[in-house]
């Protein structure tokens, strides 16, 4: 208990590979009376990569924000490392937040700091590591994402894909036990996407990191997932191994994973009849 991780953040080692470290139960959330999540159950185990798929507006990103403690559900529970977080005060959440990393959709780099400072920030703020060691960690993390020479550049000088890779380097700065990825594939070229996928899988296999990936990229999703969840209409519609998802007969799942325009998922979100609307009825 209380052993120090590689970066000096306190953590207990009670979790072994295969233990549940994220557990959501009956999570509900509405915005302005519009229900987005209607009772979602999710579990993620240590060392596992869970891919959350689903159309835009079906609650994936909301789910992610609830799991990282950025928002609170209307009802239901979210447990990280066996601890219920939805009722915790902001300060009690801090020790938990230091144990996970988040890669945001745009990378969300701090634009006023260099690439190196971005990665150093969590280390400087949450550990008492020596500057020399911090500079070594920065190089290690940047090497992992293939950007070691870019330490002194500003985020504005990087391309979208590079920002994302730096964002990943920053997310793993404190050697987290869980990493959340919000659309890691969006805006990356296929080669870079494969590199990021390798990284995600490597972190899971070698370090026992649990990864929760929200994505639209089907190819990448099937490549990295140990388990997949398809969210539809604020609920978990299907859950299982990539093979189970691929072979399921559910027409919604089939339409989604094959990206077909025709199928049970409605394209049109308006409730009024088209002809009626045109005629001003």
């Amino acid at each position: 208990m209380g052993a120090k991780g590689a970066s000096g953040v306190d953590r207990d080692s009670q979790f072994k590979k295969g233990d549940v470290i994220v557990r959501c139960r009956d999570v509900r959330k509405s915005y302005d009376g519009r229900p987005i999540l209607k009772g979602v159950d999710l579990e993620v185990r240590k060392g596992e990569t869970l891919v959350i798929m689903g159309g835009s507006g079906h609650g994936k990103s909301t789910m992610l924000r609830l799991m990282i403690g950025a928002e609170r559900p209307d009802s239901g529970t979210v447990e990280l490392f066996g601890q219920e977080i939805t009722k915790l005060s902001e300060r009690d959440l801090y020790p938990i937040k230091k144990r996970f990393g988040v890669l945001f959709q745009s990378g969300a780099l701090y634009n006023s700091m260099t690439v190196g400072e971005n990665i150093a920030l969590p280390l400087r703020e949450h550990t008492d590591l020596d500057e020399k060691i911090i500079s070594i960690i920065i190089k290690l993390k940047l090497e992992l994402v293939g950007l070691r020479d870019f330490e002194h550049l500003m985020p504005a000088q990087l391309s979208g894909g590079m920002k994302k890779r730096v964002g990943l380097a920053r997310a793993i700065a404190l050697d987290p036990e869980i990493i959340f990825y919000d659309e890691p594939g969006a805006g990356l070229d296929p080669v870079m996407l494969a590199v990021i996928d390798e990284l995600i899988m490597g972190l899971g296999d070698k370090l026992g990191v649990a990864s929760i990936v929200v994505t639209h990229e089907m190819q990448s999703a099937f490549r990295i997932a140990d388990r997949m969840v398809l969210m539809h209409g604020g609920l978990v519609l299907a859950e299982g191994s990539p093979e189970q998802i691929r072979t399921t007969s559910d027409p919604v799942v089939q339409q989604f994973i094959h990206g077909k325009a025709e199928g049970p998922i409605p394209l049109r979100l308006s409730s009024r009849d088209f002809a009626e609307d045109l005629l001003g009825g």
Partner: protein
Amino acid sequence: MSVVVALGRYGLEIFWFVLGCFRLFLDFLYWLVIGPLKGFRLRMRETARQAVRMGVNSIPIVFLVNFFVGVTLAVTVADILRIFGAIEYTASVMGVGFWRELSPLLTAIIMSGFAGASLAAEIGTMKVGEELMALEASALNPIRFLCVPRLLAVIVMVPIVTLLGNVFGIYGGYLVYYAMLDLSWAQFYDKMLDAMKVKDIWVGGMKSAIFGGIVGLVGLAQGLRVSGGAEGVGRATTNAVVYSIILIIVADCIMTVVIYF
């Protein structure tokens, strides 16, 4: 009737906004006073950087505005005082006017454009770019991390810049005095001090610190509540300036009436 409704709605909006600013101020006090006791250290280097950014860079504009207002005021006042044969009292008006009222007000209004708008734009852009969420996700409170250094910097810098504004404005007035009466700086200075009380100096200082607080709080609060992309940032920037100016002038009126009436 609809004008009344619109005014009422606007007033209510400002009221809620001021309440939000007040909450932000309480948060600020928490992270300034209690936070450091609990091991969340103040970011002093960042505060200094912000002080330079917002304070030092605004000095040229503060100089221009205060100097020209000083010249204008001196000419206007001298014209009237001449009728009473009391033209040398221009110095008194300059001293009291600038220390008590003009420099704190002018400087604060300049700073609302200079510092307040840039705070709103900066924090708003960070919010839109998920930077604030990223800070929170890495267990860093955005109020402590971003707002405290910036607000502290404005509250310290506005009085300092106001002091410089006094010097510039009064110097502008002296140039007029010199041109009209050919009197020395020492004579001007004596006349100015004759009319001033110590109270005028601390009231001016206190006012400018409060104005600094208003500029900072309004800018930060506008930035923090940005939503909806670039358009939202633009709106927040405009609102930061408009709300600061309104609140500064209202606060100035209240303080002046309470202290001097």
